[in-house]
């Protein structure tokens, strides 16, 4: 009998059946990967499991006993913990205090507290000082502390939802070591990820969800990545590979100087796609932001870019990594977001030209096939991939010469991702210069004519298409020095 059994779990949101009778077994001491496209039901299923969402029907049994979870607190008491990306640590308390949070006695004996924390961290194989303030730790280490705390509080089932999205390669390695420790300690781990390589590195079993139903559960050894993708999509999908086209004339050169970055220069030609590769903290993000005037000073076509408005005036637009916090005003209509960077062009004596505005928004909706095709809906109600299209539309409405993109497909489902790649290819063919900064090496290899590898705040290598993924990974991680 499995440690945790979910049977015939159903959940409906309005007219959408998010879960249509899903079964899932988690064994003690296994890492069980859940894969599926956006909207397949992975997160909904895990929300049911962690008590955040009440199912319409179905049962959950833990250790054979039926569970009725009415809240996250109840689930945690039963030993089921969801590790969120937004962490539940108190930044201004020490690691030791955070590990004991909720269990702190009225009078704290700090020596004993630290000793117990040190013991726990050692057991988990973590090299983190118990007296360090959580604020001083990196995002990855904070996550590790949160996991250790859940373990200390006797979690028997732990759920990870895209835990590596914001982590560097080294941090991912640490997290994986910790998850393997949890497995040895007989914890059942459910692991959601869009990244198949992680799943094939970590998981014992894989469950594939599609359209709210389970399509397969199998031991990892019985599956190949291609098969998993096929199960997810329901048809075979090949990794995207752009066909290079002839590059045109010189477009301009970015001369970047910013704190923490060695001065660098990036020459861009019309129709060229240049990739920036590197782990988090390598400087690739900082370099891209500097090119948009967000930090330091970049020179472009004889002008210094001090702020985004300067960059926009010179035809440079940045599609930021975080659509929700940086890309869109979620409460405004999609139409209002699409025209946000061209308000000046769409007004006469300060008054908005409504008809022009609507025509512009409709045009981009059609061209990027945004779904649902209703520009009046608030931007926040669109799915991740379509929100990304809205940010792109906002940028393209400015008729840019250069598009800077940071993690352009993060959190976007496979099908929409292909659509975005084709779109970027089309833009390059029209003569735009594209600079793509990404942690997804497959994406960089598929898209770029040229790749700059960042490490420690400087460019350490340059690769030309055709790009081999193994080589890029080796360069990025420093396994192979340029």
């Amino acid at each position: 009998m499995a440690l945790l059994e979910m049977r015939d779990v159903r959940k409906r949101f309005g007219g959408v059946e998010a879960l249509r009778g899903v079964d899932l077994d988690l064994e003690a001491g296994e890492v069980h990967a859940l894969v599926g496209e956006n909207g397949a039901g992975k997160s909904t299923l895990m929300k049911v499991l962690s008590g955040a969402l009440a199912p319409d029907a179905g049962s959950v049994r833990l250790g054979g006993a039926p569970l009725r979870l009415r809240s996250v607190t109840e689930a945690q008491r039963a030993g089921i913990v969801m590790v969120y990306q937004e962490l539940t640590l108190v930044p201004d308390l020490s690691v030791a205090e955070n590990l004991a949070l909720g269990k702190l006695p009225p009078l704290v004996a700090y020596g004993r507290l630290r000793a117990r924390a040190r013991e726990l961290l050692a057991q988990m194989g973590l090299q983190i000082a118990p007296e360090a303030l959580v604020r001083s730790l990196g995002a990855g280490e904070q996550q590790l502390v949160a996991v250790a705390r859940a373990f200390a509080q006797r979690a028997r089932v732990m759920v990870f939802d895209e835990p590596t999205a914001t982590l560097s390669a080294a941090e991912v390695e640490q997290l994986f070591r910790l998850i393997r420790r949890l497995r040895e300690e007989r914890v059942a781990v459910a692991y959601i990820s869009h990244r198949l390589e992680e799943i094939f590195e970590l998981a014992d079993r894989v469950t594939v969800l599609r359209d709210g139903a389970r399509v397969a559960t199998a031991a990892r050894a019985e599956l190949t990545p291609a098969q998993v993708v096929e199960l997810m999509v329901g048809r075979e999908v090949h990794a995207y590979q752009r066909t290079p086209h002839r590059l045109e004339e010189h477009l301009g050169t970015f001369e970047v100087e910013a704190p923490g970055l060695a001065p660098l220069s990036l020459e861009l030609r019309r129709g060229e796609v240049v990739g920036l590769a590197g782990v988090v903290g390598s400087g690739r993000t900082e370099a891209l932001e500097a090119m948009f005037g967000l930090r330091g000073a970049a020179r472009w076509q004889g002008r210094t870019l001090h702020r985004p408005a300067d960059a926009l005036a010179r035809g440079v637009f940045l599609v930021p990594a975080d659509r929700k916090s940086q890309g869109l005003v979620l409460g405004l209509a999609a139409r209002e977001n699409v025209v946000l960077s061209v308000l000046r062009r769409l007004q006469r004596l300060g008054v908005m030209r409504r008809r022009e505005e609507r025509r512009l928004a409709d045009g981009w909706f059609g061209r990027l096939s945004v779904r649902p095709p209703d520009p009046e809906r608030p931007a926040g109600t669109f799915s991740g991939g379509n929100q990304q299209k809205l940010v792109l539309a906002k940028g393209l409405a400015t008729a840019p010469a250069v598009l800077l993109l940071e993690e352009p497909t993060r959190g976007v489902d496979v099908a929409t991702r292909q659509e975005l790649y084709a779109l970027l290819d089309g833009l390059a063919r029209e003569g735009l210069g594209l600079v793509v900064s990404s942690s997804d090496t497959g994406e960089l290899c598929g898209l770029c004519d040229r790749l700059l590898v960042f490490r420690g705040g400087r460019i350490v290598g340059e690769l030309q298409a055709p790009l081999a993924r193994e080589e890029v990974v080796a360069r990025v991680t420093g396994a192979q020095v340029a």
Partner: protein
Amino acid sequence: MSPARRWRDWLSRYGIALAFGALVAALALLSPRFLTAPNLLNVLRQISVNALIAFGMTTVILGAGIDLSVGSALALCGAVAAGLAAGGLPPPLAMIAALALGAALGLVNGLFVASAGIAPFIATLGGLTIFRGVTLVYTDGRPITGLPEAFDRLGNGVALGVPVPVWVMLGFLALTHFLLRFTSLGRAIYAVGGNEEAARLSGLPIRKVKLFTYAYSGLSAALAALVLTGRLDSAQPTAGSGFELDAIAAVVVGGTSLFGGRGGVLGTFLGAAIIGVLNNGMNLLDVSAFYQQIVKGGVILGALLIDRVVAAGRQ
């Protein structure tokens, strides 16, 4: 869209109007004097000062700010208008000077917020105290009286059967609504308040937009000052104390989010009207002034509670 969701959307859009209608209907049944033209015009005249301030406050709050200095700015602008006019300056010029002063005071607030990066609550709390102090210095703590006819006409006059302050209020309502909904500046205010980071990455001039909202709030306080000075036929150094809270109440009852980016000035007008009608109705029904405060507070909390429920449903 599910029925529950559609209902919620509908409620969030028309809830205030619905509550207002229900209130009016209830008072009409309870008091025969309530639903008469003179009484309703009286209510509108009574709310005009608060509504004028609240319209400016709405623009600041939509930009994710707050302006606590409006009550003191009102006192100072009223005193300066009265002082200049009593000193012999033609009333129109005195009034224009007061309006310019109001905008300038708001601009000072805006500079502290947008350029110096001080939290709006603190920056305008400073304004609240300083402007009051300047008013007391300017008036030497005494009311300014002996104002020209023009002030009385503005505060107590009637045009086409409607009190002049009501015309001023409706005119400023139309102007502010147009500004917020039909101009690129208005759009920028919503964007800055809704997500400042996204607005910045879109190339919007955040600093200028914020400066404008505070200057506009100061201007609306000055306009309210002229109406109030006219009604009282004098400028009182203590005028307007506590008005900032009434204005904020009208804004939030009217459905504008204190976090910025959501709401509008038509809602604020209804919010001010609800509070005004409530006061009026309770007066007509001889409810003690002590209880009136309790009811008013309850209505503000109730409005926010409904807003919470609607917002939670939207998630």
